[in-house]
């Protein structure tokens, strides 16, 4: 298709386009100019010092990490159970249930946020952690389901049946047979759900109230109220964390694939 050379050049430009914003933020985080002038005339680590000395930024990263750990764990537990049912058994309304669990993927995020806002108003909550976590679990579920199902797909149920025949009960079979088989997918799902929660903006922004500030919200509000290159430093830290997580995810999902085939 096309000329081979044209296609390669085009793809290189597309990758440049995809990485340009990441490179720009990283570059500006080391730029000595307080006004992020381009091209930089000197380099500094001052903005990183500023970012780490700002207790609000550190707190926001910790809050994000806490929410992401809780939300990802819940999404992984719930999503794995559902994935086992959906990928291991055929039953009535199978497709309906699958579509239901995948629904948060196609429902506009703003609608999910409005729903949670209505819930917290009806329960007289002022938003906050529990509602944010509930929302992040909702958004993470379809991803966990997809990854774990992909892992279990194609693995026969005969191992589980053998375990039951040998006298293991359902709970034993689940923990000793099914779960170990699904494990690479489960871990990949966990990392994915963590990243999604860590990066989430809209649901958090609309439901968190003023008391819960995650790092995306902190960066967003710094953009409005503070003009300091420490935004770029904080952002670069977030990018580095996400890249590390994604490489971890790649590792586990590859592991998961290799064991299947």
């Amino acid at each position, binding site marked *: 298709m096309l000329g081979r050379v044209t296609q390669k050049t085009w793809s290189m430009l597309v990758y440049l386009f995809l*990485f340009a914003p990441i490179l720009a933020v990283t570059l500006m985080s080391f730029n000595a100019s307080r006004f992020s002038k381009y091209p930089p005339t000197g380099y500094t680590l001052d903005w990183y010092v500023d970012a780490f000395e700002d207790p609000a930024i550190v707190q926001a990263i910790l809050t994000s990490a806490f929410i992401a750990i809780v939300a990802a764990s819940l999404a992984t537990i719930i999503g794995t159970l559902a994935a*086992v049912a959906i990928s291991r058994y055929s039953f009535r309304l199978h497709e309906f249930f699958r579509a239901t669990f995948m629904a948060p993927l*196609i429902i506009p995020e*703003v609608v999910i946020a409005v729903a949670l806002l*209505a819930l917290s108003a009806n329960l007289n909550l002022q938003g906050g952690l529990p509602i944010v976590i509930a929302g992040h679990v909702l958004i993470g579920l379809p991803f966990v389901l997809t990854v774990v199902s992909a892992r279990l797909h194609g693995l026969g149920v005969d191992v589980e049946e053998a375990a039951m025949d040998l006298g293991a009960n359902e709970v034993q079979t689940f923990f000793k047979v099914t779960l170990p088989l699904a494990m690479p997918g489960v871990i990949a799902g966990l990392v994915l759900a963590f990243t999604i929660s860590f990066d989430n903006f809209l649901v958090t922004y609309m439901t968190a109230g003023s008391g819960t500030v995650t790092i995306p919200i902190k960066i967003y509000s710094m953009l409005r109220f503070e003009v300091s290159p420490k935004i770029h430093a904080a952002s670069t830290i977030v990018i580095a964390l996400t890249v590390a997580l994604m490489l971890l995810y790649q590792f586990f999902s590859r592991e998961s694939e290799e064991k299947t085939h």
Partner: protein
Amino acid sequence: MSGAMPMRPEYNSEAIQLRKRIAMLLSPGLLWLLVFFALPMFFVLRSSFDSFAGGVMTSDFTLQNYARIFTEPLYIQVLFKSLLTGLFVTVSCLVIGYPVAHLIARSTGKKRNLLLIGLVIPFWTSLVVRTYAWKLLLGTNGVVNYHLMQLGIIDTPLRMLFTTGAVVVGLVHVFLPFMILPLYASIEKLDASLEEASQDLGANAVQTFFKVTLPLTLPGVTTGCMLVFIMTVSSFLTPDLLGGAGNAMISNIIQSEFFGTFNWPFGSALAISFLLFSLLFVAVYNKFFNREQKG
């Protein structure tokens, strides 16, 4: 639970046991969706029929909120503009992304892994960061203007931020990987020898692409297009950070009803309408393309 039971229920018929097992596996997820989505949506639906006057909400039943969506031109305009943006961004992503997906699918080993990781990193990088970064690139003193002036293409900096163009660039950037990944999955399954055979039989590259490659990778195209379209139409952050006053999309309008004017009943009506619209769109889209692919 059943582990604590003294006897294994061997006398239960296998079918009942199986059904119990499936119910146990599905119920936590269903409960979560019920408590944190279905029930809340019922509250939203109820509040969408409430009245709002002089900054006060009352539970007097009214259809006024829905009537307003269809009578005040602003809302139809925003819907129309969001759909148009969605269409434009989707087509752009498809045209820009297809050659890249093809290249990745036809490369092997380390190179393919590298190309995929290169796609996945921006895909998962914080949305807020990736979006505001375009301010650094497109600003008056930004990277793009600097290089355009260096190259002598322009004399004075272009005003690119807070325009529809900036929003479109930002959206294409955010959603391009969502297009390339399903395309890649589809092209990878297509046997490369089919393309070669077509060329051997005398078709040129363009004919081969339109008569062989594209039709056989249609599942990837339809999946990618649907994901990108639906996500673009419901995007909030990109129009918020890169757009001007006229670039608000559906999500921005809904958010501002809840946090700007505090007209929750009207905001609820907008949210309900948007949800129904999205579900209807996906249902029609799937029906149409599934039939197309079967036929």
